[in-house]
């Protein structure tokens, strides 16, 4: 047989085979997963009302339907065995879409372990084990009192870590030269820095001198024209459980959106942690208040 005849015959055979192999037309864009739910939220020992945002993992991208999720959520104190069932609430958010938020009145203790379970009637479940942070004992660790450079630190003993630091300045203000009473006000700033001491204890650094300008601006006051006193400073960090940490050190939505990046839910996705807003009130001595640029009453 001539070479080219053999080659052609072989080609025809291959092509027929390929034709038969290529008959499959179906394709699924979604590979089903066994994971059931995605949960977002945290247990808060300082409040009674607890809540958690829940998504069912769906095979299509559709807005949440305004109907019950059909799943039972239970939060159990592991040590005592006490279980509380949370109820499903359908929330209409400002963006016009519905969402499921499970809520309950449940007392959550400090430094206790809880099992959060979400289960369908068919027995499909997602769960997460959460340990709440212990109660903290904050203490003022140092005050730097230098003219126009006042700063102080607060040690948050027993806190696993701090997120989302707020500082509330309790001030009084009036026009300079006025003999009238001071008007009271509270200015809340996202300011300060979180450091870690050598023993691992979180420390917050607050700089009233640096914040003075912002406080004046927010109260529509002018240095020189108005006078402002500083009554107290409330340092209010969010104390979070130890596992509530971003793998990159910062909470960037573009990074954390990837499923599994910040996730602790078994047989599901999402993150469920524990935390609370703590508070420590600092009264600076008069000379520190004056050095920071405030007026003494």
């Amino acid at each position: 047989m001539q070479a080219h005849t053999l080659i052609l015959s072989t080609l025809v055979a291959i092509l027929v085979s390929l034709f038969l192999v290529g008959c499959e037309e179906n394709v699924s864009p979604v590979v089903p997963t066994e994971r059931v739910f995605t949960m977002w939220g945290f247990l808060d020992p300082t409040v009674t009302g607890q809540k958690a945002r829940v998504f069912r993992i769906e095979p299509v991208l559709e807005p949440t339907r305004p109907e019950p999720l059909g799943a039972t959520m239970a939060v159990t104190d592991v040590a005592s065995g006490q279980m509380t069932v949370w109820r499903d609430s359908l929330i209409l958010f400002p963006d016009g879409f519905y969402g499921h938020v499970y809520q309950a009145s449940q007392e959550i203790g400090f430094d206790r372990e809880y099992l959060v379970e979400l289960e369908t009637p068919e027995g499909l479940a997602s769960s997460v084990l959460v340990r709440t942070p212990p109660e903290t004992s904050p203490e003022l660790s140092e005050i730097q009192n230098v003219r126009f450079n006042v700063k102080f630190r607060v040690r948050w003993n027993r806190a696993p870590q701090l997120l989302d630091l707020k500082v509330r300045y309790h001030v009084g203000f009036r026009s300079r030269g006025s003999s009238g009473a001071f008007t009271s006000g509270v200015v809340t700033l996202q300011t300060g820095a979180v450091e870690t001491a050598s023993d691992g204890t979180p420390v917050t650094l607050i700089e009233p001198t640096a914040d003075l300008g912002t406080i004046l601006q927010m109260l529509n006051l002018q240095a020189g024209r108005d006078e402002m006193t500083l009554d107290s400073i409330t340092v209010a960090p969010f104390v979070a459980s130890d596992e509530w940490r971003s793998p990159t050190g910062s909470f960037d939505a573009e990074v954390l959106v990837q499923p599994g990046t910040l996730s602790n839910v078994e047989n599901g996705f999402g993150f469920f942690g524990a935390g609370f807003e703590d508070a420590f009130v600092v009264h600076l001595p008069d000379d520190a208040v004056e050095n920071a640029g405030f007026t003494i009453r």
Partner: protein
Amino acid sequence: MDKRLICFALVVLLSSARFYFDTVAQVAIVRGTVTDATSGETLPGVNVVLLSDDGDLVKGAVTDESGVYALSRISRGVFTLRATFVGFDAWEQRVMIAMDERTIINIALEPVQSELGEVVVEGDRRDGIVKVTAGQTTVLPTDIDLVPSPDVSGDLVNYLTAMPGIVSVGDRGGQLFVRGGEPWQNLVLLDGMWVYQPFHVLGFFSAFPSDIISSVDVYAGGFPSQFGGRLSSVMDVRSRNGNKRSYEGSAAIAPFITGFTLEGPLDTNGKVSFLTSYRESVIERGASHLVSDDLPYSFGDFYGKIHALPSGNSQLSISLLTTHDEGAVFEGTAVEPAEQVEWKNTAAGIRYTVLPNVLPAMAQFSINVSRLESDQSVGTANSRSTEIESVNSNADITYFNGDTTVRWGIFARSLRAESRLGGLFQNVELREEFLTEVGAYVEPEWEVRGGWDVRVGLRAHSFPSKSVSFLEPRLRLVRTGLVNEISLAAGIYHQEIVGLLDRRDAAGVFTAWAAVPDGFSVPSSSHLIVGWQRTFSESFELGIELYGKELRNLFIPEWTAFPRFTTNLQEADGEVLGGDFRLNYQKGRFGVFVTYGLSRTRYNAKQESLPVWFGTDELEFRPAHDRRHQINVVSRLDTRYANFSTRWQFGSGLPFNQAQGFDGFVLLDGNVDVTTEPGSRRVIFDKPFGGELPTYHRLDISAEKSMRVSGHGRLTLQAGVINIYDRSNLFFLDVFTQNRVDQIPIIPNFGLKLEFH
């Protein structure tokens, strides 16, 4: 600068300098233009030889794309000048050559008189599916006519997609991927004019109907020094010149498209001709009634050319091309709106070719203007638009010296690019930019022992306003004249003007043209091609070509689990390895060609989040256009009743982003109230491009019958079926809704073409 590059540059320059000194020696040269005696059309590919009185070959040459030949380093004497070409009677003339004479002899060939249906024996063809040399394939209108298409006149794009290594992701969108490269990396020229988006929104049509084409050189890689500014490929389309002797024309009508051509002389001396072509789609009124699907596409093109022979040794042409396209390529998802795209190309140019009497050279000067306007979703919140226009001027000189030829040239280009993307690429700011590019190239070519043709080149170009310059070495080696033809091509390429597009799936069409954004490096590529071909007999030819391509500093969209139409751009590198297999069999009235392309394309992405997401700094993946296997089988049978042709095409599945499901995301960065924070919907993607779509295959058939009418006309009837076994070939898969959009189902087509002269 790289030492190897310096050495290479020295080799190129010394070779060119050697040629100069050789040229000074006292030898003669015979040059000229070969034309068709009946139409005045210049003829590329004509064999022109100089024979001694004994009949021995003294010199030989083949006319180039302008129909110009050159026989140099001739000693004085009396010779026979002979020209032969398939379909024409041989031409001969006795010539006396004096020492150091620069002679111009123009040749007009008379066509062979043949009856309809008579088989024309093919001689030594330079075209054909197997004739690929170091990545270069020459395509003629007769090749295009082999492939069934819903246009009775034929269109270049249908032949291109039958070539191995050229991937189309579907029958719409107008995007061709050449050997792993993306569409914006292809340079498409029509008579030297840049055409930025030449393929129509419906994949059976392009700006190049067969009726206007003289020849096309397709460089799938390894292109020579005269071409640059692109990473992947060059398609150099040359149009016909129009009949200088008599008027000719045609009118064609079919359910997809209608059109007409008209050509003829503009003077009585046979020196000036015009050629026009106009086509307009009628698919919405025609073909859409033949299928159950909507076909909301509208497109058309116009081409006009005036060609003149001002003197015996010069040619002048003025060309104009316009195209328009509109259609909904992408029907929209739950989160992305429908993608209604529209674009317009405009290109105009002047080209002057001259054979100087005093120099053994050919010079070509051209200046042209090209413009693309493209819009997507006009009038909506997701509106995007892009404009690019360029003025290109070139001077290309070819020196002839016996077995050595030196090509060199200079060019200058000014560009304006502007895009409004509505925040599509969040980390890139695009503004209106004006750029100037200047450059030069030199490429000596000579024959060495063993039958090797060596062509080394160097291209240098610079963007002064951006302070960037590039030096690009090129190499082509071809060994011909023996049973086995071996070829090799290599080169380095850069592309400063890039196309940015959101290719999270291969169906994306809208491309924003811009200079490389601030903060990103200029994309570059390296090519290596090795080829072999053999003509076993008059009936059977075989060719194999292996290639590798390295791509650097590409822009790709970042992955995100957010189901949104905006994204960031990230850098990636790519590697392409592949092989093309081509077979051509011709016996009597039956012919078949088979092409098989095997390709592996991999991108390496360096997105910042990768270490966190996948535990690795880089991620290797298959891009959306990586088609592993591609097969085309095209056959033709000519009978006295009609000509029948078939095309079966097969492609393995393309990669896509598969999902595990959909849920929601809330950024828990502290004391977040989940009763007021709505969060976002989220896609739980599997590994990037980890899924594979189904295979694609389709059989098209066509029958054509031509007959004379009234002595001066010819009527051609065509009937056929696209996708005759109604295969549901997937075009787009919506991961969000699981809806699929299929390509064109079974659709009959028919056409009528009336030609007159």
